[in-house]
C-alpha cells in the first residue's frame, strides 16, 4: 500500500521475534484517519504485539512505521505519546487511592512556578473533555470506589487529556457489562466525529460489527486480510480468524433432567465489607441439566461461589448435595462430596503456574492411591495419568506433561482445569466464567465439553457474566440481581432483552412470559 497522508498509521512489513519464536511475520496495517479500525485475532495471534510495537514498547526486527505519511522511529512510549498516540491497556494502570483527577494529571501536572499544583484548572479541563465526548465520570471520586467501566473511561480521559489523535484500545470490552459496552461504543463514535482515529484490539465479533469500520485479521503472527466490516458477517470473520469454519451457535439436544442433585435454600453470605452480598438465595440443579446464572458483575456471584466452595462462611441457609449439607465445612469436604469447580480466576485459584501440567493435574488427588505411595508421589503413575488426559482433552502441545503450566496458552490452561475437574467424575460441576479470555475455538470446545458432561448425566451450574453464553448453553436460566435469584426461565422462553432488563434490576409484568 502506498504511503499517504490519508492514513493515520501505516505499518509495513513488521516482523517481531521473541528469541526464536516469530510473533509477527511481515504484517502490515493501514489505518485511515477518522475511522475505527479493529484488529481481530485469537489469543496469541500477535494483535497486542503489533500494537506494542506501534506504542514503542517493543522494537520490531524489520518493517517501517509511518504516521500521517511520515516515517517515524518509535523507540519508546514517550516518542509514541509525543506523536499523539495513546493506549488503554487491558489491565488499567491507575493509582487506586487517588482521585480521578489526580490519576489523569499524573505525569502531566499543571503547577505554578513554586511547584504548587493547580488542581482547579486541571479539574476544569477534565470536565470540558468529559462534556465534549460524553464520558460520564466524577472527577473527585477515588478509583477504588468506581466501577470498572468508569475506570476505563478514566484511562480514555487520561489519553485525551494528553491530546492524543490516535487511541489504541486493548481488549476494552473484556471487563464490561453489556450496557457499559454500548456506552463505550457510543463514546468511540463521539471521538471519531471529532476527527480522532481509534484502533481496537479484540476477538469479539459482535462488537466489531457494532463499532468498527474496517477490520484487519491476524492469525499466528501472519497477516490474513483487511475487510470492510459492513461487507462481511460474523461467520466470515470467525472463519478468517481461526482458519476454518466454526460454529458460533452451540448445538445441543433438549435436556433430559433427572432428580435434584444440588439445592441451595435461603442462602445469605456477607462480603468483605460485612454487607449481605447474597441474600436469601435459592436454586436447584438437576442431574442432566445445565443451570445458568446470568447477572452483571458484583451481584453476588463471587460470594455465591465462595460459599458453595467453602472459601467463605454462609451466614444462614443450606447448601445440599445429594441431600448432605455442606455449608460451613471445608473446601476439602466439598471436593469429597463430588463437587468440582472451574474457578473464574484460572491463574489465581485454578492453577499453580510454576508447577508442571502433571503436578497441576493431581492437585486434588495427590494424596490418594495410586498417585501416592506411602507418602511419596508415584511419579510414573501421575505422568501416565496426565498423558491420558492430555490426549483425551486435546491439550497442546501434546508433550507438555512435564512443562510448567505457565507456558501453555489460556485456552490450553483452561483445558487442563476442565480435564482435572471432569476426571473427578463430579455429581455437580460448577463452571464460573469458563470461557473468560479464551478465543473462539477454545470457547466452542468449552461449551461442547459442558454439554457433553450434561449428557453424561452430570448436574452443571454455569455462572457467567457473558449473557450470550448463558443464553446459548444453559437449559435453565436463573437471573441474579442484588444477591438473589429474581427469576428463572427455560431456554428459549424469553429473549436477551428481557433477561438484560432483569439483570439490571428491572421488573417484568407477568404477561411478558406468555407473550414471548
Amino acid at each position, binding site marked *: 500500500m502506498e504511503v499517504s497522508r490519508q492514513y493515520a498509521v501505516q505499518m509495513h512489513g513488521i516482523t517481531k521475534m521473541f*528469541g526464536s519464536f516469530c510473533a509477527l511475520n511481515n504484517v502490515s496495517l493501514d489505518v485511515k484517519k477518522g475511522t475505527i479500525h479493529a484488529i481481530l485475532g485469537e489469543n496469541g495471534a500477535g494483535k497486542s504485539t503489533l500494537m506494542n510495537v506501534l506504542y514503542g514498547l517493543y522494537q520490531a526486527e524489520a518493517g517501517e512505521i509511518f504516521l500521517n505519511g511520515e516515517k517515524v522511529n518509535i523507540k519508546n512510549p514517550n516518542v509514541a505519546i509525543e506523536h499523539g498516540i495513546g493506549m488503554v491497556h487491558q489491565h488499567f494502570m491507575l493509582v487506586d487511592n487517588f482521585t480521578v483527577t489526580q490519576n489523569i494529571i499524573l505525569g502531566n501536572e499543571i503547577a505554578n512556578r513554586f511547584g504548587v499544583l493547580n488542581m482547579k484548572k486541571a479539574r476544569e479541563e477534565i470536565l470540558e473533555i468529559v462534556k465534549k465526548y460524553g464520558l460520564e465520570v466524577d472527577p473527585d471520586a477515588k478509583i477504588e470506589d468506581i466501577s470498572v467501566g468508569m475506570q476505563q473511561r478514566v484511562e480514555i480521559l487520561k489519553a485525551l487529556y494528553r491530546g492524543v489523535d490516535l487511541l489504541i484500545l486493548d481488549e476494552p470490552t473484556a471487563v464490561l457489562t453489556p450496557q457499559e459496552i454500548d456506552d463505550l461504543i457510543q463514546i468511540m463514535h463521539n471521538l471519531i466525529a471529532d476527527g480522532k482515529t481509534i484502533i481496537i484490539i479484540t476477538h469479539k465479533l459482535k462488537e466489531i460489527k457494532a463499532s468498527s469500520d474496517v477490520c484487519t485479521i491476524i492469525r499466528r503472527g501472519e497477516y490474513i486480510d483487511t475487510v470492510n466490516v459492513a461487507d462481511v458477517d460474523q461467520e466470515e470473520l470467525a472463519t478468517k480468524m481461526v482458519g476454518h469454519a466454526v460454529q458460533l451457535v452451540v448445538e445441543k439436544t433438549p435436556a433430559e433432567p433427572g432428580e435434584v442433585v444440588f439445592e441451595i435454600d435461603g442462602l445469605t453470605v456477607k462480603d468483605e465489607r460485612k454487607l449481605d452480598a447474597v441474600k436469601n438465595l435459592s436454586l436447584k440443579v438437576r442431574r442432566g441439566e445445565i443451570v445458568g446464572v446470568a447477572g452483571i458483575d458484583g451481584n453476588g456471584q463471587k460470594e455465591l461461589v465462595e460459599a458453595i466452595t467453602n472459601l467463605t462462611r454462609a451466614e444462614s441457609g443450606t447448601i445440599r448435595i445429594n441431600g448432605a449439607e455442606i455449608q460451613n465445612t471445608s*473446601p*476439602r469436604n466439598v471436593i469429597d462430596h463430588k463437587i468440582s469447580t472451574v474457578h473464574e480466576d484460572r491463574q489465581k485459584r485454578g492453577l499453580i503456574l510454576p*508447577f508442571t501440567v502433571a503436578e497441576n493435574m493431581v492437585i486434588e488427588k495427590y494424596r490418594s492411591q495410586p498417585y501416592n505411595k506411602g*507418602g511419596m508421589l508415584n511419579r510414573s503413575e501421575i505422568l501416565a495419568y496426565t498423558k491420558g488426559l492430555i490426549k483425551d482433552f486435546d491439550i497442546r502441545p501434546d508433550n507438555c506433561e512435564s512443562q510448567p503450566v505457565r507456558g501453555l496458552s489460556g485456552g490450553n490452561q483452561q483445558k487442563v482445569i476442565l480435564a482435572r475437574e471432569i476426571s473427578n467424575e463430579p455429581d455437580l460441576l460448577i463452571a464460573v466464567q469458563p470461557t473468560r479470555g479464551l478465543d473462539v475455538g477454545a470457547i466452542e470446545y468449552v461449551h461442547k465439553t459442558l454439554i457433553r458432561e450434561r449428557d453424561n448425566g452430570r448436574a452443571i451450574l454455569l455462572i457467567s457474566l457473558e449473557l450470550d453464553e448463558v443464553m446459548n448453553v444453559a437449559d435453565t436460566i436463573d437471573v441474579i440481581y442484588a444477591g438473589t435469584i429474581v427469576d428463572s426461565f427455560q431456554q428459549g422462553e424469553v429473549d436477551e432483552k428481557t433477561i438484560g432488563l432483569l439483570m439490571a434490576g428491572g421488573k417484568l409484568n407477568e404477561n411478558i412470559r406468555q407473550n414471548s
Partner: protein
Amino acid sequence: MKTFVRILKKPITSTLIAILFGFLVAAVVLVFAGYNPWESFGALFKGIFAKPKYISNVIIKATPIILTGLSVAFAFKTGLFNIGAEGQYIAGTIAAVCVGVKFNFAPVVQVPLVVLSGVLAGAVFGGIIGFLKARFGIHEVITSIMLNWIGLYLSNFIVNTATYHQPNSTSSYAVNESSFTMLLPDWKTSKAGMAALKPNKWLYEMMLKTDVNFGILIAVVMAIIIWVLLYRSSKGYELRAVGFNRDAAEFAGINVGRNITQAMLIAGALAGLAGALAITGTSPHKISQMAAFENNGFNGLSVALIAGSSPIGCIFAGLLFGGLLYGGQSVQQDVGAPTEIINIMIGTIVFFVALTKIVPSLADKLERRGAQRAK
C-alpha cells in the same frame, strides 16, 4: 554459539559468574586499599587448602551454615522468608547446653537426646513464627526478627543463671563429654590412637588438631532428605503448592495454615539442629555471653541465596562460604589486609548472585544477535 548460549542459561553458570565478579570487585577494593590482590587471594586459597587442618576447619565452619542455609532455602521453597534462622540456631544451642549439662547418660542415649532437644527448640521457635502467620496473618519477617532477639537474650540469661554459669567466666558449663559428636574423641588422644595415626601425617593433623565431627555427614544427609521431601513426597508437593500459590492450594482443599506452620517447624528444626551440632561437635561445647549475633543463621540466608534455594546447592554454597570465612583469616595474618575485605568480597558475591537474572537475558540477546547475523 548455541552451546555457549545454552551453558549461559544454566543457573549454575550465573552463580559461577557471580562468584568470579565477586573476586574481581574484591581485587579492585584490595588495590585501592593498597594491597596486592594476587598475594591476598593466594593467602586466601592457602588458608583454605594448604594444610589438611585447614580443609578440616573449613568443613567444620561450613557445617552449621549448610544447615541454616538449608533451613532458609526450605522455607523459601514453601513461600516463606525465614530470617529467623539465627534465633532458631541460638535456641538449638541453648537447649543442647541445658540438656547436655544436666544429664549424663551413655553416649548412645545422650547424643540423640542432646541433639534432638536442640532440634525441638529450633522447631518451637520456627513453629511459633509459622503459627502466628497461619492463625493471625502476622508477617514472618517481623516475628522472626523479634524471636532472634528473644533467642539472643534468652541465651545470655541462661549463661548467667546459677545452674549453668561457669564461675569466673563469661560462659556456661560445657556439656558432658558423653554428648560429644567428634570422631573418636577418646581414642584419638589415647596412646594407641596416637600411635596408629602417627604414620599418616594427614590424618594425624586432621584428627588431633581439629574437631573433626559427624556434623557434615548429618548436614549432607539432611540436604538429601530435604530434597526428597520437597520433590518426591506428597507432603513436599503440598508445601510447595502452598508456597507457589496459596489461593489455588486452598481452593484445591489443601489446609494452607497447617502447611505454613509445618513448613516453619521444619525450617526451625533444621536451624536448631545446626545449633545443637555446633555444641556437641566443636569446642568449647558451651554457650557464652553474646554482645551481638554470631551470624550462623544470617549467613544461612546468603548460603541459601547463592544456592538458589536448592537443597543440594546449599552443601556447596555452605562450603564456599565456610572457606571464605575461614580462609579470610589467613589474608589478615599473611598480607595484613583487614577481614573487612573478605566481608566485602562475600557481600559482592551475594550481590552479584542476586543479579544473576541478568545472565539468561544477556544470553537471549546473544542468541538473537546470532540469529540476525545468520540471516
